[in-house]
Structure formats: C-alpha cells, structure tokens
C-alpha cells in the first residue's frame, strides 16, 4: 500500500513510442495514499493510538460536544467518539479487504475459464452472472443477514458472493481482449496447455487492470458494509464500527453532531481515497 510511483505494473511502453509519459502521480493521489496509510495504521495500532479504550464509559460526561478532554465529544453512553472512530478502522478495513480479494480470486478463475475456453463453460458462467445481476443486491444482503441473524462475517460472505458476478464480467472481457493476441496464439500453436496459457500467459497481462478494480471493489464494499451496520445488521452491538456509530449516534445529532459526522467523514474519505487510487492505476494502464 506504499506509494511506488516508479514501478507501477504494466507501465512498459514500447521503446519506440514517441511520447512515453512517466509523469508523477498527481497531488490528489498522494493525499489518497496518505489517508489510506493513516487508516491502516489506525487499524493495526488502534488501541495504542486512541486516547481512551473504545468501550470505556465516561458516565459522568454523557453525550457531550467536543472539548479539550474529548476532542470529538462523547456518545450517549459516554464513550469517546474519537477513540471509537480510530479503533473502528479495523472492521472498516478487514471486511472490504476480504470482500475485494475474495470476490476477485473467484472472479479471476471463473473469468479466465469462461473467457478463454468459451463454449459451454462460458454459457454456464455467464448465465450465472446474469442471474446474479437480476437479484437486487442490497436487499438480498439485508434479508440474508437479517433472517439468519448472522453477524459480521455472514454479511462479508454475502457481499463477497454478490461482488463476484460483476467482477467475473470484468475479468472475462479482459481475457477476451488478450485471447486473440499473437503471443497467446503462438503458445497455442506450440501446444502449451490451456491452464498454463490462462494462468501464466494471460493472467499476468490482465493483472494491472484487476488491481485497479480491486481498489474500486474495496471502496464499494466499505460503503455497503457500513450501510448494513447502519441498519443494525452485521457487527454486533458495542463493536466500534463506523456504520454502526452513525446508527447509534443519530439520537445525539443535536447534542454532539460530531459523533455522527466523524465516522461518516471517515467512511467517505477512505472510500474516496480507494476510488482515487483505483482510478489512477486504471488510467496508468489505459495510457499505455
């Protein structure tokens, strides 16, 4: 997750290209990297950075606006909003990472098989994708998590499966673009096995595109999980979680608005930063 301006995958333009653009990432991308870095630090070291334990109740204070002692004020149970926001970075990162990585792992396999082999495999995979597209995603998530009473990991699993369908389409179209290239045909002519062609020839060439989409998936996963938490689904009560904090602190909107605005802000800038990074990677690839 460190910014590596000089070694972006896939920046290898042919040497004869007249205008090779090797520009530095724009300032907004740097800001996005810094924000994501801060969120990661909070997720890893939350308890040590936070001024108070996230669940410690300062009952004498109640729901108080920001003060020198509680920089972001306290919630209705007298818990420090700042500390809860910092520690809440953990669920905010873990869920979306599992969703984005898992969905893409499955989508990569399905997309490669479907795009490269075509025929019956392609039909089956694509009909399944069509079926998934026909489902109202958020509603399914609410119903499944609500009915099973499942909690955080059920929510993550449902999201992961829902995300697999659009990701499969992306992988498949990237594979279809590579498949007629001479280097693939040369490997076919040589008699290289289909699995080797898929995973050793085509996959490395589409990986940069997938990397860009993984970031976009992360952002969308974060917002979706926060939405579920806001509805009271997902993380159990008491867990410091951004979506849940918005839900819990609705009632103190007029006594301590920061209690609601700070986690909301955290969601927006984290998801936004991931989008910016994903877009930037995508642009770098398309500029080739």
């Amino acid at each position, binding site marked *: 997750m460190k910014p590596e301006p000089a070694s972006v995958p896939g920046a290898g333009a042919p*040497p*004869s290209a*007249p205008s*090779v653009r090797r*520009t530095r990432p724009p300032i907004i991308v740097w800001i996005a990297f810094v924000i994501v870095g801060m969120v990661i630090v909070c997720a890893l070291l939350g308890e040590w950075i936070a001024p108070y334990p996230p669940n410690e109740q300062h009952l004498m204070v109640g729901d108080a606006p920001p003060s020198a002692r509680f920089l972001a004020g306290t919630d209705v149970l007298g818990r420090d909003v700042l500390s809860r926001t910092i520690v809440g970075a953990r669920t905010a990162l873990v869920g979306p990472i599992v969703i984005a990585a898992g969905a893409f792992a499955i989508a990569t396999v399905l997309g490669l098989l479907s795009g490269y082999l075509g025929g019956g495999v392609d039909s089956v995979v694509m009909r399944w994708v069509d079926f998934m597209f026909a489902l109202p995603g958020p509603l399914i998530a609410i119903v499944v998590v609500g009915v099973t009473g499942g909690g955080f990991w059920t929510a993550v699993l449902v999201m992961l499966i829902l995300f697999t369908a659009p990701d499969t389409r992306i992988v498949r179209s990237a594979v279809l673009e590579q498949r007629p290239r001479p280097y693939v045909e040369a*490997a076919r*002519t040589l008699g290289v096995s289909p699995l080797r062609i898929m995973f050793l020839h085509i996959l*490395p060439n589409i990986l940069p595109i997938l990397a860009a989409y993984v970031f976009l998936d992360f952002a969308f996963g974060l917002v979706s999980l926060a939405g579920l938490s806001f509805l009271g689904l997902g993380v159990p009560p008491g867990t410091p979680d951004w979506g849940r904090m918005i839900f819990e602190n609705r009632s103190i909107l007029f006594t301590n608005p920061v209690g609601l605005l700070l986690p909301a802000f955290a969601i927006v800038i984290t998801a936004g930063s991931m989008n910016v990074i994903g877009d930037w990677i995508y642009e770098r690839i398309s500029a080739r």
Partner: protein
Amino acid sequence: MMGDVASTLLSVRGLRIWAEPEGRRRTIVAGLDLDVGRGEAVGIVGESGSGKSLTARAIIRLLPDGVRSEGSILFEGTDLASLSEAEMRLVRGRRVSLMFQDPFTMLNPLLRCGEHILEMLPATGREERHVARSEMARRLREVGIDPDAVAPRYPFELSGGMRQRVALAAALARDPELLIADEPSTALDVTTQAEILELLRGIQRARRMGLILITHDLRVAFSICDRIYVLYAGNLLEVAGSHELEAAPLHPYTLGLLLSEPPVDRKLERLVPIPGSVSAPDDVADRCAFAPRCRWATDVCTTGRPLLAQVGPGRWSSCIRVHDIAGEMAALRERSLAPAPPSPPSHQPLLVVEGVSKTFIPGRGRHVEALRGVSIQIDDGESVGLVGESGSGKTTLGRCLVGLEEPDAGRISVAGIDASHAVRLSRSERSVLRRTVQMIFQDPYSTLNPRHSVGWTLAEALRTADAGLRGAALQRAVSALLERVGLPAAYATRRPAALSGGERQRVAIARALAVRPKLLVCDEPVSALDVSVQAQILNLFRRLQAESGIAYLFITHDLAVVRQVVDRLYVLYRGEVVEEGPADVVLDQPKHPYTRRLIASIPGVGGASAAIPGLGSEGST
C-alpha cells in the same frame, strides 16, 4: 543553400525538434534545412524514429503535446514559426494542407463523405447551396470518385483506397499551394497504393502544387518525387534529385536502404542488410549519425557531426568520406545484384491442402467466404509463397495449417496425418503436428508475452517439446536458440519491451524453432519492420533454410520480399488460387490478370497500372 529551385515556395532553415519529458530534453530532429519549389514534389525518406513525421507536423505547427520546435519556416516570405495560432489557422488547409497515413481516423466517422468536402470548401451563403454542392461533386470527380455514389455514404462504408481519395479531396478543397502527405499509401493494399500515388502525382502536376511526401519506402519516393531528402536519426544525410539518387547514392545509408530493399525482378544470392538498428539522435549528436552502422566508418566519422556538403550539381551528402568510398559503394551495389543459384527441387510432399473452404459468419446473416476450395502443396525443405491482398484469405489459410482455425470442407494433410480437425486427433498425433508446423506472426510487438523474459518464453517452448529438459541443459538450449537467430545469449534475461522490432521477430523465430519444426508458416513476418531490418530478417530465414533444410510458407502482399525467399508461388485472390508456379515464372510471365495487376502496382516497376475491369480492389473489405 539549395537555391537552384526557380521559385521557392517553402524554405525551412535550422529546424530543430525535441521532446521534454520530465525536463530531460530528447532530440528528435537536430537541425534540418528543406526547400520546396512551386510545383515541386519533394520526398522525405526515413525509417521509424528518423523524425520525418514530426518534421511535417512542425512545418504546419501541429506538434503533439510536449514536443517543441525552433527554426525558421518561410512560406512565401512569411515565417510560419512567428505567426500566432489564430493566424496559423488561416494558413492550415487554405495554403498548406496535411494528409495522414490512416484514411480511417482522418475522416470524421459521423460525417458523410460529401459533407467532409462541403465543410472544407470556402464558406458560401445559404442561397448558394447548390453551387457548393456542384463544387463538391467536381472535387470528388477530380480524385476519381463518382460523387453520386460516394457523397451520401459514411467513411466506414468505403474501402481504404476510397477513403484516402475522399481525404485527399478534403485536403485539396481550399486549393492549398503546398500539400504535405504523411505515408498516404502505406496503410493500403499494393494495387490501391499504386492508384493513390498515381492520383497524387497527377493532381500535383496538374495544379502545379508543392508536395512534400513523407515515406519510409524509397521506391514510393522515386516514383513520384522530383527531389529526395534522406533523413536518419534526426539528421539529413543526403539530398538529391530522384533519378540521381536512384542511379548513384552518395551516402552509405542511402545505399544501404537501396540494397536492403529487395528488387522485385530477380532473386539475389544474398541481401545486403544494414547491421544494427536506428540510433537515438542524442546518442549520435557528436558524430556522423550513421557511423555506428556504417561499414566504411573510420575514426574521422566519430570526431564531429558532419554537415551536409555539396558534392555535385544539386547533390548534397553529409558523408565526409564520400569521395574516398564512392568507388567501393558502386562496386558493392554491382556485387549485390548477383542472382541466386536456383535451389534444387525437392520430392517429399510435407503438407498437402486439398479443396479447403472456410466461411466466417460474423453475424446478422452475413457470410464471408475466406477460402473457396484452395489446394496447395509444400514439399520437404521447399520455400513457398502465398501472395494476395488483405481479404484474399491468405492469413486464414495459414491459421488453418497450424490449427488456429478449422476448415469447413477439404483436407489438410501434414506429414501423412489428417490435420483438418485438430480436436479429433490423438494426443501423439497432435504433438507430431506441432513439431512439424509452426507459425511466425506479423506484429513483433504483440507476438511475445510482454510480462515474461525472452529466456522464459524460449524455455517454455523448449519444454513443450521435451518436458524433461531443465536446469543447466535448458539454459544451454535457450542460449543455443538465441545464437541461432543471431542474438547474444545475454538477451535471455531481457523483457520484450527492451528489444527492437527486429530483435523481437528474431526471438519469435527462435521460439518457433524450439520444437524443431519442418515447416514455418510466416504471416507477413517482415512487413511491420523497418526497411533496413527487413533485409536482416530475410537473410536469417535464408540462412536457417540452408543450415537445417526447413520449409517455409511465406504469406505476404509484398512481391519483392517473396521473390527473395521462395521457390514456388501461389497467388490467392478472393479465396481462390488464381495462379501458381515457380516464383520467377509467375513474376516474370504472369498469366492471370490479377497477378499482372499486382506486379504492375509495385512502385517503379509497372508504371502504367491500368485498372482491369471487373477486378476492382475497391470492394468492401
């Protein structure tokens, strides 16, 4: 300095072009002087990276972002370099027009062809619309187009040649005094290419218009230009009249270009290639730009950058040793024309194709009959050419031979195995097939997997033939393959992006050789390469054949290339073989009218490329 032109239209002095990515200045053109007289056709000839296209764009001040130029560009006494952008707009199109290589991207796909011309015509009032329409029709007729049939059509409905004609009419609509044409015929089929060049020449003469033709092909420049500027790595190396240059080039590079372009009228014993590949202008800033590749280079050539010096009436050369080596250059040219001895006939049929047909159904009920009952035969160790234009089905046939396509009907038999349907073959039969026939693809830039090193690619190919190969033995085999195609073994660690086009094509050949095939199907293997590199690769093909007796099927549209490497020839036209026989017989005494037209359309050979009725190449492609 070139003041012998009666009335100078354009005079460029000290033109320098450079790019500045991240503040590092990269020279593209290092000082260029150029004159174009009224009614004169001037050619700028150079390979890729010579700076020829950017020179054209600098003159009309349409350089891409990040590329800058300096120097004076006097057009009828006005320095174009000093004009404001608004003033420049009044020059572009009206007085100087530019025409590009790709006839498709040049035309707006949403405008009908007639509208392209109407838009360019001088503004007329509403009541004069019919005047404008008849003017538009006249303009289209000038470029040989029937206005009623073409004006209401969109660019995508036309063939490449027709589009290029429309583009020419649009470029001429404001009656410019100077037309700059950047590779106007390169993207077209050979027969269409000849028509466009002839049209361009005719119009240029009739209008007494100045013309700058930018091309990589000396033969194209000879066929329509009065004078030629030879540009190499951003430096002018030679300036001369077309005829003088063709008769006796006075710079080793020009000679090298001439020699590496294979002649169409005979098969040479050996082509004389230019070693190496084009240098970057900044690497040769303090010396003769061509010195690193010149067989006559001595210390004096690397001590300073030689300037263009007059060596005869109307002739300039930047070679300081030109007087010392003129005799040797003439002798080399004489020697290079030695014809090759006829190759011994072979006997064993290796590949037999009988009545193969293939129809593509791209959807919406359309049928494209790519192959219609084609029969060919290739013997052991024989070199066979398959010639035809785009759409003739030649690539489809090649792909059928290596199993990338399946024929709908007919039989392909390779080394005794029926290879018509790859899926029905047993595993062992399939592996015999692969070891017998391999393929070389046209585009050197996508033929190698950009993510893997050269060594990885070759090792994989070697191991598909012999899975037991590993470790040091594998490394040795990779090195041996690289050396066989004339590359240093150290190239194994390189990625394709670090190689030039010619080097990539060598690696692709090495990859195909890894399974020791008996037949290489080469689909336009040199058409994407620079002229000077083409000859190297053609010589490599010939050397490999002499060493290992491999057979070739050369699929190409270039008759001169085909003559250098093949013994027998098949001419494919619209999916059918229309003529076959020994290469020299087919090329010297063509029987079928289509073959005759193909030969006549080579620049500098046919001259009169009379269109044959009923054989229009302008059909939809």
